[in-house]
């Protein structure tokens, strides 16, 4: 190492070592200005923007279908694991019940958005019907599980599989 590069290294080293040891804080009341921004951010993050266009409505439909598929596939997997003796009934019961509970807000949220025009009325009917079928299949699974009804649970697994496939197919065609 040459003397010049050596002194450069030493200079960088001393800069790196000293920069944090010289930090001083100037007292300022910066929180006062930030508070309304944080409050607004919190408020806005919980808001839902209504659909104003076909594309926006289709996006809402697609998201509702995705979430519903997640719920039905979850319940199907939990019921299958219970039937195979891989999951205790207590655990499966909570998972299936949570899946069923999650569908209500999805239906309410999608059902509460007005279609922007008549062209997408048929999509509203189709998605609404499928969400309703999903709710029925989830209830079927929950009832079978709470009764420890293996035959009923097998039927529910089949129903959930069918409704999941339909939801996925519709979801793929929506966009």
């Amino acid at each position, binding site marked *: 190492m040459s003397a010049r590069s050596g002194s450069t290294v030493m200079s960088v*080293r001393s800069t*790196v*070592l000293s*920069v*944090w*040891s010289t*930090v001083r*804080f100037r*007292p*300022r*009341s*910066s*929180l006062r200005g930030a508070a309304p921004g*944080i409050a607004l*951010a919190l408020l*806005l*993050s919980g808001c839902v923007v209504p659909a104003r266009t076909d594309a926006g409505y289709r996006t809402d439909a697609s*998201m509702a279908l*995705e*979430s519903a*598929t*997640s719920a039905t*596939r*979850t319940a199907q*997997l*939990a019921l299958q*694991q219970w039937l195979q*003796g*891989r*999951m*205790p009934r*207590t*655990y499966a*019961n*909570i*998972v299936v019940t*949570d899946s069923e509970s*999650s569908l209500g807000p999805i239906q309410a949220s999608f059902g509460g958005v007005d279609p922007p025009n008549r062209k997408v009325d048929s999509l509203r009917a189709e998605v609404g019907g499928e969400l309703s079928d999903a709710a029925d299949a989830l209830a079927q699974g929950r009832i079978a599980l709470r009764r420890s009804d293996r035959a009923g649970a097998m039927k529910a697994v089949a129903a959930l599989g069918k409704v999941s496939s339909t939801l*996925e197919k519709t979801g793929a065609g929506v966009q």
Partner: protein
Amino acid sequence: MKRLFAVALGVLTAIGGFVDIGDLVTNAAVGARFGLSLAWVVVVGVLGICVFAEMSGRVAAVSGRATFDLVRERLGPRAGLLNLLASMAVTFLTMAAEIGGVALAFELATSVNAYLWMPVAGAAVWLVLWRVKFAVLENAFGLAGLSLVVFAFAVWKLGPDWGHLVSAALHPKVPVTEDAFVYAYYAIALFGAAMTPYEVFFFSSGGIEEHWDVKDVATMRANVFVGFPLGGVLSLAIAASAALVLLPRGIEVDTLGHVALPVGEAVGKLGLAFALLGFFAATFGAACETGLSVGYSIAQYFGWQWGKFVEPLRAARFHVVLLLASATAVAILLTTVDPIMLTEYSVVFSAVALPLTYLPILVVANDRTYMGDHANGVVANLLGSVYLVLVVLASVAALPLMLITKAGQ
């Protein structure tokens, strides 16, 4: 031999104690949605927490005072108060989420509604904070948390295409079905979960509880540089198991029950029992750590007697803070807020508060008045500076991304 045992115990508890509700939920959610394409964030986050935990542990061992005991003295009361308010808000939110996580774990084990378990969990946390010795608390929950290794076992049992898995982790990209903003939002959430501020509060104050001195720096470094990365491996195992079982089925992670579904699929009931024990240990241990962190930081800022190494009567105000924090956390949960949603918000707000936590550590660790010859060297300062830039970027981007993506939808 005694030294070796202390190192091994410290490393094992560091591994088991690394994962909390934020890591459990965020890693599973990310794995189910993005596969392993965000694994690099876990690596970056774990290295970051190692850098700052080592600094704060060294400060405690060398100066005999917790890092945040020095922040007010070094940076003045106003900067110290800003640091206290921002960090405490996030730590308290995390504490509520952890108590919620304990209740959710009990619900999965018993089928009794989680909201009925929440007051019980909160009372149990307070009782442990009041009565149980620090070393017992740290070691018992840290070791029990090791049962989360079942997630790594589940990944192995699922028999994945290892080449594909490693390739996905090493070649990160935004999945075609996802938006780049959503990808960035979850990257920040993962980063916030790995670098949660309370971990350094707890680590440095814990060093004082255990009477560390300069001789303990090597043991502390072993805990940090071996234990934390292995804890990070557990986080990656949770993400990988979700990527293998939940992602192909289009299952999104909305509840704690989702997180262990891959374990049930691969290992069965016994595996689920281990996973539930791990959930309980991780969330209960972290609830205690966050509760103590709230008490430590407030007491250290106001100059009160603090710590479990003294009798509760001699640290009465510290213990009153612990009681109030436990009760208020339960009160928040009983508003019927979803603990998982609380967790998701807490990790993002963690990212927002990161600079206010880590900048003072960097400053104090460089102060030779306290640190003498043990002040930061070039490597620690370079890494600290790079990470400070990263945490500032994450902090600035967190809230806009939350708004743009509607919290990752």
